[in-house]
């Protein structure tokens, strides 16, 4: 089992670099950099992480070919690979379609655009994971790509996401995470969970009867009325996060392993707490 940490470009780069170095020293094999329009772009963040670390693999988790033309993604990782060696994994997914619409991104023909970009990246020798937010992408990811990024950590949801995936594909499960106790980042965990739920695919929402709830979450997030999320605390935390003390997290890791997951990615806000990164890395070493 491999372990990854997700770091986003929503914090000063000095803290990002410190977090990346701590993660590498604590034994994490992968650092996954998320993309959101309001975050710093994954390219400068990836360059900062690559320049600070020596061996950890650096992934985009995810980068969207709907937001970035595919030739920019290829050209970006080509130059990063040229500078820092073959340490990059490209996690490709549509991204949060609701958020993309807010910035005028055309999302029609999404699957075809992802498939074309995936094939071009593979042709150029990149390691590519596909965000398996819906069955069609899971199938594509497990046949053409090197692996799948699953944006869920609840076993029931993970099973659904993997339903159409081929067994041989590598599978990495991601969820907003927090090593407790950590009173400073509780609300960020909740926002992270709500963001994952709000950005989930229609197929996922239909499967689990979440359409109305997701609509309400989107409204709350759009208004930035984050206090409202607390009324869904249990549902959000249970459904979409990894949280607890080291023993709780080890249990969750073992659950995911039993489902065929071979990498667990501890999503933000865990990486905001450098001490948690070090403690978690140490606590996971025996797994």
């Amino acid at each position, binding site marked *: 089992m491999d372990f990854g940490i997700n770091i986003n*470009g*929503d*914090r*000063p*780069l000095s803290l990002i670099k410190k977090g990346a170095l701590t993660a590498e020293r604590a034994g994490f094999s992968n650092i996954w950099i998320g993309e*959101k*329009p*309001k*975050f*710093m*772009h994954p*390219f*400068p*963040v*990836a*360059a*900062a992480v690559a*320049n600070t670390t020596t061996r950890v693999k650096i992934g985009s988790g995810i980068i969207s070919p709907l*937001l*970035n*033309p595919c*030739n*920019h*993604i290829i*050209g*970006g*990782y*080509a*130059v*990063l690979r*040229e*500078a820092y060696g073959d340490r990059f994994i490209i996690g490709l997914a549509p991204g949060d379609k609701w958020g993309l619409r*807010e*910035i*005028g*991104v055309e999302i029609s023909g999404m699957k075809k655009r992802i498939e074309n970009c995936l094939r071009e990246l593979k042709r150029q020798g990149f390691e590519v994971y596909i965000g398996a937010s819906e069955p069609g992408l899971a199938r594509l990811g497990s046949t053409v790509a090197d692996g799948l990024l699953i944006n869920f950590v609840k076993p029931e949801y993970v099973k659904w996401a993997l339903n159409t995936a081929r067994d041989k594909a590598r599978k990495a499960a991601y969820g907003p995470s927090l090593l407790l106790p950590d009173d400073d980042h509780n609300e960020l965990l909740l926002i992270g969970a709500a963001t994952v739920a709000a950005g989930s695919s229609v197929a996922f929402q239909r499967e689990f009867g979440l359409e109305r709830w997701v609509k309400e979450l989107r409204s709350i997030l759009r208004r930035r009325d984050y206090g409202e999320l607390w009324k869904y605390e249990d549902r959000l935390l249970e459904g979409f996060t990894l949280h607890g003390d080291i023993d709780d997290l080890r249990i969750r890791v073992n659950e995911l392993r039993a489902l065929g997951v071979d990498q667990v990615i501890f999503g933000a806000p865990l990486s905001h707490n450098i001490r948690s990164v070090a403690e978690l890395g140490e606590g996971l070493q025996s797994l």
Partner: protein
Amino acid sequence: MRLSLGLTTSMPLEESLPLARLAEKTNYSRIWLGEDLNGRDVFAYLSVLSSETEKIQIGTGITSPFVRNWAVIANSCAGIQSLSQGRFILGLGVGGIPEISAAIGHKPKGIVSKMEKAVLFLKKVLKGEEATINSWYARIRNFSLAVSVAPPQIYLGVRGPRMLALAGRVADGVIFSGPPKYLREAVNIVDDAAEDAGRDPFEIDKVVWNPFVLVEKEEDIALAADMVDVMLPSMPPLAKKHLEGLGKNELLSNICICGDFEEIKDQLTDYSRMGFSEIVVGPPYGREPERTLKTLGEVYGLRN
């Protein structure tokens, strides 16, 4: 007169990084990175240059808001400004129309108005404010960045009269290119527009980026001649009218900064008199790019 280094994304890092390090060492002021649309990504490339240098300013020379989502331009700028610790300059331009048309699937329309909106949007967002654009060419609602950075200066690399006037109204600096007679007219257009907008024209930084060749042997002229062939078709009418009927050698001296060291010194003096504060030493440089940069840097770079 400042010297800066011009690179392009078509250059492999093993070629460009030694030049970037040398430019920094010999006190060049800036590195401008030209974008080849089908090559390495300009922002990723600048991310690497930021990490590999310490004090020299770095900028896009240019990137196009016609092929990139403006939110992505903003978040890329924020990342590089942060990574470079405040050394970043955003150079914007339209780019080559055939290349842009191929990239977006149609000929760009409303170019001046769209560029103006892009500059104003980016200035606002990079200052840490929230911005909304609701137009036929861009729809971005309540956008702001998650991190605050020192707002980078915005330069425009433009050539047509309406775009030059726009630069005079809204840009912190302008990257010019073309023959000297055109450049005089272009500077006047920028300055007049600046005055009309209530700005001091001297506050607008003026940069020239023409092909640069230090000629040490007769055969070096072939390097410059190749650049004439590349540059000539893309010249705007305002520049082309100054090139009509010129012979090969005159074309060379109009389109390129080229000659031996003494001749180049004279040309730099002429540009300075025309109101330019910076010359970009860009490809093809000369037969030995490192020696060209070093020679010029030792004389001009150290003065600043």
